[in-house]
């Protein structure tokens, strides 16, 4: 899922402290925030937009292409179902600690109605120079700058570091897609990589994974078919096995979820796997990605010629 500059976004939970604060910050990044939703608080105005009681009411008055949920975990299911049943096609689900079965229910309903879900437990997505939907610092020019590298990350804080490193190394981003840290996600690493592969403005992909789960291994099979260069970093490779590290997904379960398994699968697929994020810029250059003009041609064949690690 990507949200472009022409698309209209609503903010669910806009009357809360974070909802109103981030509505303004998202608008600063160019996002077209057209309305807010807070049940029982319809009729107010927050962050310069009208507040409605339900998504259906907002959708009756406004074009609604996407919604971003600033609602607490136990209210997230209802809010997301409100959006899905009102026909919103893109749902950005930020909350952390949402009951997993609520998430699965939302994803099942979304699938029925053809909606895409990003998250939960995501920091959102950024198209630098166009939009920022979520809680990423899309307004910070040392971190986000228009360019041609697409970034996929489970983590918001680590995604921020990676984007900072890209800009420091002279690159910009075509998009940042934060997929979220939960085990059950609407958009997986594979889904996001496919989106970036299909995106014309994306000439190279940076895949930021973490130990635990098998999403990186699943994405690797697709990476092997790509012509765009892929550089990957897997966080937590030095974490002692069997430690729970906060993200529910980051649990080393068996052979497949370990850092070694992910590195091996991605390396085999032709990606360049770096040891630390500061090596990403050099690895992109070595893999044939060019900084600067977003339309610069990417020499796709270089990837085969450059050995990983």
């Amino acid at each position, binding site marked *: 899922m990507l949200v472009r500059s022409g698309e209209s976004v609503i903010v669910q939970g806009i009357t809360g402290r974070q909802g109103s604060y981030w509505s303004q910050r998202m608008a600063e990044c160019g996002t077209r925030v057209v309305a807010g939703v807070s049940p029982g608080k319809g009729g107010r105005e927050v962050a310069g937009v009208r507040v409605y009681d339900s998504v259906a009411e907002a959708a009756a008055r406004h074009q609604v292409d996407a919604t971003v949920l600033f609602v607490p975990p136990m209210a997230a299911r209802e809010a997301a179902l409100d959006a899905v049943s009102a026909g919103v096609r893109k749902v950005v689900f930020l909350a952390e600690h949402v009951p997993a079965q609520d998430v699965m229910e939302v994803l*099942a309903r979304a699938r029925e109605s053809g909606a895409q879900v990003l998250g939960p437990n995501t920091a959102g997505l950024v198209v630098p120079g166009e939009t920022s939907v979520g809680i990423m610092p899309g307004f910070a020019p040392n971190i986000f700058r228009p360019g041609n590298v697409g970034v996929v990350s489970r983590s918001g*804080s680590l995604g921020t*570091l990676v984007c900072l490193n890209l800009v420091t190394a002279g690159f910009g981003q075509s998009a940042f897609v934060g997929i979220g840290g939960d085990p059950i996600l609407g958009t997986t690493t594979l889904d996001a990589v496919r989106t970036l592969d299909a995106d014309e403005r994306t000439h190279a992909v940076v895949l930021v994974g*973490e*130990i635990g789960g098998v999403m990186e291994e699943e994405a690797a099979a697709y990476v092997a078919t790509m012509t765009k260069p892929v550089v990957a970093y897997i966080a937590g490779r*030095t974490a002692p096995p*069997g430690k729970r590290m906060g993200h*529910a997904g980051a*649990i080393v379960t068996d052979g497949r979820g370990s850092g070694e398994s992910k590195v091996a699968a991605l390396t085999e697929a032709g990606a360049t796997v770096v040891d630390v994020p500061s090596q990403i810029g050099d690895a992109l250059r070595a893999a044939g990605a060019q900084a600067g003009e977003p339309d610069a041609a990417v020499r796709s064949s270089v990837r085969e010629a450059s050995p990983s690690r």
Partner: protein
Amino acid sequence: MKLLEHHGKQLLERGGLRVPVSGVASSAEEARDVASRIGSRVVVKAQVPTGKRGKSGAVLFADSADEAAEVAERLLALSVDGYPVHEVLVEECADIERELYAAVLNDPVSKGPLVLFSTSGGMDIEEVNRATPELVRRHPVDITRGLDAEEALEVVAGTDLPDAARGAVADALVRLYGVYRDSDADLAEVNPLVLTRAGDVVALDAKISIDPGSEPRQEAVVAAAPESAQEQLTELERRGRELGLQLIELDGDVGVLANGAGLTMTTLDVVHHYGGRAANFLEIGGDAYTKATPALSLVLDNPRVKSLLVNFCGAFARTDVMAEGVVAALEELRPDVPVFFTIHGTGEEEAVRLVRERLGVEPYDLMDDAVRAAVAAAASAAPAPSTAPVSAEVR
């Protein structure tokens, strides 16, 4: 949260599954009483939240009440996988015709519940799955429809289960699915689920874990789970837990404070990359970003810490708020370890100004430079005292 077997069996029984007659004992005497009440051959099982008990000698059989007392005493002196045994379950032995395997779990790939079923249940189910995966049925369930009897019959169809048993086994699957839903489990596993000679379907074990995000609405289940069944924590880890912070003690000497699990894991990787070892994993991301002051005192209370590395990349977590907390803690605690900062993202300018003006410390532009400096400072400090930590062990 992982439930002990006897707790899980209560949930199964409430959900309408059959479980053997049993009782929990925390002493040899209690075990003798339960066994004599049952009055037949019993199995005595250590109650620890870990798998493969059968293979680690934590499940023993007894033909008399005296023998039950004896084996209970032996089990109660054990530690299994790092968990001391505080309780045993004394249970009647089932008249087993066939051992089956059944589980319902959250499946990231189908993004919904997944039912697993096999007629080759028992201790070797993992080997069965590895060698002959076709013997383990995998059935994704549409959570908006649930699992009904008809669909459950499809799950068991095509297996070598006797025709007469199919209805009862399908019914057990439906009930297990009900327990999974009602208790917000992320795993509800019965291995073995047995078919008795009398034709009953009985759950001989229960491995149920509750999805952490659902704990607030599963108060009754959570309240019934004993403290001892949870992770084994060090003193600092326990203090962290009380403050709502996840701290894991490691064996290095570079104290680390970062926000977000991904960035914190990365910080540990980068410390390792430059030849250092982190003293802890501690993240203050998400809503915990306002807890920098107590978090920092936890890091500094670790006597092995020889240098301190603070790495913030603010998205939702505002670096100015986190820096304010860190600066306040450092002003109050005045630790005699050097501190290295690297700060970027939301609130960056204000955060850098705070650190510069109030601590007289210049944050590093590049994370790698801050890490290198922190690693070098720890290496040049006096050798660490040899206090080996007992780390949190999960699974």
